[in-house]
């Protein structure tokens, strides 16, 4: 299995009616989970829809070894039906009129091998729930059905559009573990979009940081997240109120809803940050000082 080479460009009006330029080039390594991380409005979900063939870029290409899914120069745009991509939508898109079993086998039809189905049901812990309908399942069970349905056809690429965003943190953490475990067993190639830093760090084997429609950086999670202090134990979500820079440092004034505080960062770190951005102020536990008051 080869890795995907993605190079996509598109101009379109965003939700505010302003012109938005998406201009991304990155890779999706084979048999790894690639996390595309970025704030809301960065263009993450649009990239995912391009990958699935649900939308078409103005120009660029999506290539995987000898396979070309999209190449504007050659006039190639393979339909979603022929791309061999599984898509997990944010709201999962389970078919409400089909039970668990029929939802899962929908991509392969009735001639699905019984052994394959039972293995998948076992791996996703859905045994005994085959005849239930989606509205009779918990949030976590729905996630597993959507995952099993996406996996049954063994697609070349699995696309996840923030599928865990609606879950509480306990269920989310459990499903992260299950996804990692399943990935170890099957070794699928996946691309997961999220704006949740902890989810990104937890699941990523390869990470792409997206901001304002552009790739800020790409690489291993260690390179990207550790370098940015995002593996830290202490994390405070906050919004940037103002920024002042000298030659070396930038002083960020931020507020977290309850208080306003100031943070010094290197100018390199502050390069991608702007006033109004939602950020996470992070510190490693070893750097923290605790005082009894």
């Amino acid at each position, binding site marked *: 299995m080869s890795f995907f080479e993605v190079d996509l460009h598109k101009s379109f009006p965003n939700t505010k009616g302003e012109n938005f330029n998406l201009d991304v080039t990155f890779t999706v390594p084979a048999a790894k989970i690639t996390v595309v991380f970025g704030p809301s409005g960065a263009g993450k979900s649009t990239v995912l829809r391009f990958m699935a063939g649900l939308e078409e870029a103005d120009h660029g290409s999506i290539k995987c070894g000898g396979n070309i899914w999209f190449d504007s120069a050659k006039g190639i745009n393979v339909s*979603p*039906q022929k791309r*061999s991509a599984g898509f997990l939508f944010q709201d999962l898109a389970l078919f409400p009129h089909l039970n668990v079993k029929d939802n899962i086998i*929908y991509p392969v039809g009735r001639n699905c091998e019984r052994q394959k189905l039972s293995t998948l049901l076992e791996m996703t812990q859905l045994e005994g729930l085959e005849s239930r309908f989606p509205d009779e399942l918990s949030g976590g069970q729905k996630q597993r059905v959507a995952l099993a349905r996406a996996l049954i056809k063994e697609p070349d690429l699995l696309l996840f559009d923030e599928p865990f965003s609606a879950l509480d943190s306990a269920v989310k953490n459990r499903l992260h573990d299950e996804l990692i475990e399943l990935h170890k067993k099957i070794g699928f190639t996946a691309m997961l979009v999220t704006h949740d830093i902890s989810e990104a760090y937890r699941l990523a084997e390869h990470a792409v940081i997206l901001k304002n429609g552009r790739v800020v950086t790409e690489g291993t999670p260690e390179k990207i997240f550790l370098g940015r202090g995002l593996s830290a134990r202490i994390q405070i979500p906050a919004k940037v109120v103002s920024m002042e820079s000298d030659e070396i440092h930038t002083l960020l004034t931020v507020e977290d809803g309850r208080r306003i505080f100031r943070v010094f960062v290197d100018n390199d770190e502050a390069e991608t940050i702007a006033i109004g951005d939602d950020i996470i102020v992070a510190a490693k536990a070893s750097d923290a000082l605790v005082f009894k008051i």
Partner: protein
Amino acid sequence: MVFLEPLWLTIKLSFVTTSLLICVGIPFSYWLSATGIRIKPAIEAVVALPIVLPPTVLGFYLLIAIGSAGPVGRIYESIFDAQLAFSFSGLVIGSFFYSFPFAVQPMQSAFESVDRRLIEASWTMGKSKLITFVRIILPLSKKGLITGGVLSFAHTMGEFGVVLMLGGNIPGETRVASIAIYDEVQALNYSGANIFALILLFISFSVLLAVFLYNRKAVRTV
């Protein structure tokens, strides 16, 4: 027998019209729900016209079209060597246009209410647009499709103005129950009119009750 003939003709007209409306209405309303064509509001307005137009106006223009001097009527006569106006076939054409919005509007609403992501999910699973339509869109629109079909049936059963304009009052050919009621009242035979009226009332109520009961059940299961 006197009572049965107009009733039988009414039911036959309703069945034929409803069948035609389902065959044409489903693809048309799906197209209307999915299209982004600029003249869509104008098309929707034309479709809805029979709801607000006096039936005699619709009947008049249809009579012009299907009469012996009209374009459709002339073509029909040259092919079948028979008159289209004042025939059962003419009634079917009139009923079709008169009940068209009652079939199309609920169907269109049902198609529009199907979550777009379910359709896209089916595509990404390798299913063609036709398979997606049959296996996802149609079952999820079932309630609206049945409502459209039943409303068309009930509406055709009770139609009077268009039928009178296009079909007149030919026993066994165009004399449907609503015309028969009018005839009986004109002849001051109120008890005869009452029998037709009661039967129509009973059938219409039963059909509507059945669809409401079905929709209630459908809400629970889908």
